[in-house]
């Protein structure tokens, strides 16, 4: 099997070449390590920002207060009406007594005042706490609920929610653009470093060309070499990601500054980032080599 033999030789020549040109290999690997470390940091940061904004979005709810004189039948009808709305993820009905109890449990002053209320005396309003499916349509859903019968007040943080959502949207987009741009910069840097190292082996490529080696066979060991350098170069960033993130997560107790900003759980997340780094290293290494060697193959 000639193609397999050529493939095998290409690979073994690539391995030999990594060691024969050790200084150049170290230069390429160092460049890959540094750039991938930056990429890893950017991916971890953007993923956590994304996670935090999504958490906050998921926590957004509509609080709907029911008319004080609504009967039990009215409330049952309201439940059905709310349930029938398309954008409702889930809802929780909290009766006057539920609210009273929870307030009493939360605060001693409330407890003192409320415990003095007579039996049947409760000026609080029952409410529905509604979580929506699509947070961007929260305003529209709130308006629809407001128009239902026996609804007194609807609150979802109007104005602030829209502003928050648009800020999150911008933050997410900026993060994605930053990571993609960084990956491109990495590709450019790595490919240039490999190009410089291959330049010093222009002679070798010339000789291969002159003795009748086909372009594909000339390229093959260089592409494998790029792959090997890319994989070796991604090992340190991967280890830093796994151990560094787990250490950081444990040190911070899973949150960042405040309990609201929770960090992504390390398990699974660090492996996903590691695989991504490995793929970026391998592909960029291969592609960088391919581009560089192609330049010297023009007849």
């Amino acid at each position: 099997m000639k193609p397999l033999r050529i493939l095998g030789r290409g690979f073994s020549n690539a391995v030999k070449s990594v060691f024969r040109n050790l200084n150049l290999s170290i230069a390429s690997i160092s460049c890959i390590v540094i750039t991938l470390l930056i990429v890893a940091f950017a991916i971890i940061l953007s993923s956590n920002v994304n996670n935090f904004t999504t958490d906050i979005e998921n926590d957004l709810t509509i609080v709907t207060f029911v008319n004080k004189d609504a009967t039990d039948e009215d409330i049952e009808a309201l439940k059905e009406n709310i349930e029938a709305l398309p954008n409702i993820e889930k809802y929780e009905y909290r009766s006057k007594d539920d609210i009273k109890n929870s307030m009493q449990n939360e605060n001693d002053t409330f407890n003192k005042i409320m415990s003095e209320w007579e039996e049947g005396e409760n000026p609080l309003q029952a409410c529905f706490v509604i979580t929506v499916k699509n947070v961007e349509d929260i305003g529209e859903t709130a308006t629809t609920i407001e128009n239902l019968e026996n609804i007194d007040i609807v609150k979802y943080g109007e104005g602030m929610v829209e502003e928050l959502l648009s800020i999150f949207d911008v933050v997410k987009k900026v993060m994605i653009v930053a990571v993609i741009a960084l990956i491109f910069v990495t590709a450019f840097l790595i490919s240039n470093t490999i190009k410089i190292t291959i330049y010093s082996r222009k002679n070798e490529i010339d000789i291969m060309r002159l003795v009748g080696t086909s372009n594909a066979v000339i390229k093959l060991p260089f592409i494998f070499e790029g792959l090997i350098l890319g994989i070796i170069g991604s090992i340190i960033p991967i280890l830093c990601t796994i151990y560094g993130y787990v250490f950081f997560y444990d040190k911070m107790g899973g949150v960042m500054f405040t309990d609201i900003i929770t960090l992504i759980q390390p398990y699974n997340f660090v492996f996903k980032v590691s695989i991504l780094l490995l793929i970026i290293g391998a592909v960029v290494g291969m592609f960088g080599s391919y581009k560089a060697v192609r330049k010297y193959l023009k007849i």
Partner: protein
Amino acid sequence: MSFIELQNVYKIYKNGVTAIANMNLKIKKGDFVFVIGQTACGKSTLIKMLYREEKPTKGDVYVGGVNVARLKNNKVYKLRRKIGIVFQDYKLLPKLTAYENVAFVLESYGYKEEDIKPRVIDALTHVGLKEKLRSYPHEMSGGEQQRVCIARAIVNKPKVLVCDEPTGNLDPDTSKEIMKVIESINTDLDTTIIMATHDKDIVNRMKKRVVVIKNGVLVGDYEKGSYKVDEAA
């Protein structure tokens, strides 16, 4: 058609320099031809056109029936497998041993390992370097490095051996030895030899066909010729 044939060949470089002008040349299979002339007369350009390192601006160049001038870039490597090339500066890979320098050619063609070894040893034996298989280029003399270059050129049993000033960097005694090797390839393997040189002694001693180039024009073609200084100048 002759084994090698040039028909109305011109080579004009982008800077306007005419390296070859209206050249017609026929070389039969098994011939040994010296191409002589002063430095920058067009010898190397002619040699390079044979293995398509240079493309003629006009005209046709046939090598073994293939019009090299019209050969697509992605087919050039096939032509080069039929041509052995010997360079003035040897062009050896410094990090490979003599054996590896010769073997990598066949490896890159996809030969099996068991076929490569005997052929490489044969080629290195032919040039008298059987004892230096494991030597690296920097451990060998200029003459030995040139022998490795010749072994690499003949390992695929080419029909033609193109030599561009192969003795240019060597002393007269070593040059003689190298010429013996090249001549033996011509006689033993029936390989056509085309050799660019300006080494008078070699040309005059060997009495082979001599083609003289002056300012890119073929000005003389002699069977069993010699190096005429006036003509080449």
